[in-house]
C-alpha cells in the first residue's frame, strides 16, 4: 500500500509525535540528565535546583491549546493566567475556519480517523446519532459559570495527554487507567467511524459553532442554509438550545459542586479548593508524570465519583519532597497553581495524625521518634510518657508532606496524613537551604 504523504498528513504526523514527546516530558528528562552529568563532570554536586528551566512546563502546551477546556476552567476559577492565552490561536482559527484544528493538527482526531478507516463501509452511519457534543459543550459552559465545569475532561487533547500515563513506572492497573480514554475513542471509532469527532467531542463542536457564529454575524442566510443541509429543524434554533443547556448545566454544576467535594483528598500542593478541583482538573496526567518521587496517583474513586482519575497523593514509601515543585509547573487548567518552591513548602496539603494504638513509642514504650527525625519542618512535638519520648503533631506547622508516614517503622503506620482544605502556613527554615 502506498501512502500518499500529503502536506496535511505530514503535518498531522509531526504534530502527533511532538504532542507525544511533550506529554511524556521527554525534553525536561533529557535536559535534567545532561545538566546533572555536566555538573558532576565539572566536579559539581549534580543537583539541579527547582528553579532551573528544564522545559518541564512544555507538558502543559498541548492540553492548553484547547479553548474549550481553557475557557471553561478560566470561568470556573474566575481568573485568567498566561496559560489561557495558549488557547487563543485555536480560538481564532475556529472563528475564521471552523474545524481547521481538527483536520490539521488534533492528534486524537487523527488517531480516531485512522481507526475509522478500518471500516470505510459504515463511515457515514454516525449522521443518525444524536448531537451529544452540543449538549456536552453547553452543559460544560453553563456549569463553568457556577464554578463547576462538567465534562471538560472530555477534551480530546487532555485525553491524548492522559494516555501517556502508561509510561509511569512501575506500571500498575492504576497507572493504566488514564489511558482508557484514548482506547475507548479508538474502540468507538472502529465501531462507528467519525462518531467521536462529529457527535461527542466538545472541542470539535465548539470550533464548529464558533465558525458558524462568525459567519452568522455576517450573514444569517448562510447559517440557515447549513442547518437545512444538516437536516436540523430550523425552529429549534441554536440560541434556544444554548439557553436551555446553559441553564441545565448551571443547575447540574451547582448541584454536583455541593454534593461532591465534602471529603478531602490529599491533593498536589497548590491545588484549588476541593469543590472546584474535581471539575477544573482535566485528568491530563501531567502532574502524575512530573512527580520525581512518584507519589501522585490517579484516583480510583476515593474522592467520590466526580474525582475519578484526579491526582491524589500517596505517601508510602515516598513523600512530597521539600526541594521539589515540579507538579505545579505542568497544570494546563490551573487546577494546580503555578507556585514557587518556597510558596509550595508553606502549603499544608493535609495534616499528619498519630494513631497512638499503633505507635511504637506510645503503645510499646520503644525509643523511636523516626517521625520527628524525618520531619523537614519540625512539626512533631515530643511528649514524655513514662520516661519514653512520644510524638504528637503540631497542626499549625505540619504540611502533610508525608515523610513521617513514609518513614514510620511501625507494623501498621502509626502516623498518617489526612486530607484537609489546603492552606498556607508561616514559613519554616529548612535544613539544606
Amino acid at each position: 500500500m502506498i501512502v500518499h504523504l500529503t502536506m496535511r498528513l505530514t503535518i498531522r504526523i509531526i504534530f502527533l509525535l511532538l504532542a507525544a514527546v511533550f506529554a511524556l516530558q521527554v525534553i525536561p528528562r533529557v535536559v535534567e540528565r545532561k545538566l546533572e552529568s555536566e555538573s558532576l563532570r565539572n566536579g559539581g554536586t549534580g543537583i539541579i535546583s527547582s528553579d532551573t528551566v528544564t522545559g518541564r512546563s512544555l507538558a502543559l502546551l498541548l492540553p492548553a491549546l484547547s479553548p474549550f477546556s481553557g475557557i471553561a476552567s478560566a470561568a470556573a476559577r474566575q481568573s485568567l493566567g498566561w496559560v489561557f492565552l495558549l488557547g487563543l490561536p485555536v480560538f481564532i482559527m475556529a472563528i475564521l475556519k471552523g474545524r481547521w484544528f481538527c483536520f490539521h493538527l488534533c492528534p486524537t482526531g487523527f488517531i480516531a480517523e485512522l481507526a475509522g478507516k478500518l471500516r470505510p463501509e459504515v463511515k457515514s452511519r454516525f449522521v443518525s446519532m444524536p448531537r451529544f457534543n452540543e449538549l456536552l459543550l453547553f452543559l460544560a459552559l453553563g456549569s463553568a459559570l457556577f464554578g463547576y465545569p462538567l465534562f471538560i475532561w472530555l477534551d480530546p487533547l487532555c485525553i491524548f495527554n492522559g494516555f501517556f500515563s502508561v509510561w509511569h513506572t512501575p506500571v500498575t492497573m492504576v497507572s493504566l487507567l488514564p489511558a482508557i480514554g484514548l482506547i475507548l475513542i479508538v474502540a468507538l471509532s472502529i465501531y462507528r467511524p467519525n462518531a467521536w469527532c462529529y457527535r461527542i467531542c466538545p472541542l470539535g463542536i465548539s470550533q464548529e459553532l464558533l465558525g458558524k457564529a462568525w459567519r452568522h454575524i455576517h450573514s444569517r442566510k448562510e447559517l440557515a442554509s447549513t442547518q437545512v443541509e444538516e437536516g436540523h429543524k430550523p425552529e429549534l434554533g441554536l440560541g434556544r438550545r444554548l439557553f436551555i443547556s446553559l441553564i441545565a448545566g448551571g443547575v447540574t454544576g451547582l448541584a454536583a459542586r455541593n454534593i461532591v467535594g465534602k471529603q478531602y483528598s490529599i491533593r498536589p500542593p497548590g491545588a484549588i479548593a476541593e469543590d472546584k478541583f474535581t471539575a477544573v482538573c482535566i485528568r491530563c496526567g501531567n502532574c502524575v508524570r512530573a512527580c520525581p518521587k512518584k507519589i501522585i496517583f490517579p484516583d480510583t474513586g476515593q474522592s467520590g465519583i466526580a474525582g475519578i482519575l484526579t491526582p491524589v497523593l500517596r505517601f508510602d514509601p515516598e513523600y512530597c519532597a521539600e526541594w521539589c515543585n515540579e507538579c505545579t509547573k505542568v497544570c494546563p487548567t490551573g487546577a494546580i497553581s503555578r507556585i514557587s518552591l518556597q510558596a509550595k513548602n508553606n502549603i499544608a496539603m493535609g495534616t499528619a495524625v498519630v494513631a497512638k494504638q499503633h505507635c511504637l513509642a506510645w503503645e510499646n514504650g520503644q525509643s523511636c521518634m523516626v517521625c520527628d527525625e524525618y520531619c523537614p519542618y519540625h512539626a512533631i512535638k515530643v511528649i514524655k510518657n513514662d520516661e519514653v519520648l512520644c510524638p504528637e503533631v503540631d497542626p499549625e506547622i505540619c504540611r502533610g508532606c508525608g515523610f513521617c508516614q513514609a518513614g514510620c517503622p511501625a507494623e501498621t503506620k502509626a502516623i498518617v496524613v489526612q486530607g484537609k482544605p489546603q492552606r498556607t502556613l508561616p514559613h519554616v527554615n529548612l535544613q539544606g537551604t
Partner: protein
Amino acid sequence: MKSIDRRQFLKATAVISTVATVLPDVSNAADSSKAVIYVVHGRDITKMVAAGMEKLGGWAKFVKKGQKVTLKPNVAWISKPEQGADTDPVLVSECVKACKTAGASEVVVPEKSVNDWKQSFGSSGVLEAVNRAGGRMYALTEDKYFRKTDFPDAKILKQADVAIDVLDTGCLVNMPIAKSHSGTTLTLGMKNWMGSVKDRQFWHRNKLHQCIADCCTVIKPVLTIMDATRIMLTKGPRGPGEMERPDLLIFGTDPVAVDAYSATLFKKEPFSIEYIKIAHDMGLGCGDLSHVDVVKIEA
C-alpha cells in the same frame, strides 16, 4: 637474734629492686590495654587529621597496600556543611587522599541516606569532595549492594543485610558526626552503621539501643574519626538546630570510647546514652572514661 648476713641482704635487695623495676612495667602493661583516644583541637582540618593520625602511628598502620578502604561518613541528610547534619566534606576528602597515598587500591564511600541521596550527597558537598580526592561514593539504593549476615553474639539483631563494602574491605573507617538525636538523645559513631544496613526500620521496632550495640558485634571499624568540629545541640539529627563549635576531631580504635568522650561534649554522662552502656556491658569497648586515656592535642 639472728642478723641477716650479706648473702641474704643481697638476695633481698635483688628481689626488691626487681619487683621495683618490674612493677612500673606491670602498670605500663595495664595502661597499654587501656583504650586511648586522641582529641585534636584546631581550625584546619587538614592539619588536625595529620596530627591525629601521626599519634596513631600513621595511615600505613591501618591501610594495607593494594587493598580496598571503606569510609563511612554520615551523609544521611540534605544539609550544608555549616549546618552540621553531615560529616564535613574536607574531613572526608583528607581521609580519601591519605588512604590513596598510603597505598589503598581504591577508596569507597557507601552510604544509605535518609533523605533523597542525590540531594544529600550534593548539598553536603561530600560527593564532590570524594570525587575530587579520587574516591568513589555511591548510594546503597539496590539490593545487590547488601549481603545477609549473621550476628552470632547479638541479643536482638541476629541477622541483617549489611553493605558488602563494609563487610569485605581491607580497612573500615567510621567517620560519624556528633549531633543531637530525637530518638537516641545523641547520634554518634556506633549509630552511624544504620546507614550501612538495608532495613533500619527493624531496629526501631525492636529496641533501637540494643540493635545499635548488636550491630557493632560484627561491624568493627579499625578506626573511628569523629567529626566534632561543629555539633548540633538541638533539633537533630536533621536540623537546622542550635550549633556549637568545639573544633574537635576525635580519633580512636575503640568505637565505644570515642562515643563516650563525644557524649561529654553535649554535657551528657556517657552511660546515660543507652547504647553506649549496652555496648560497654557487652564488652565491645570501653565506655567508662575513667579507664580511657584521653590524649589532647593542639593542631
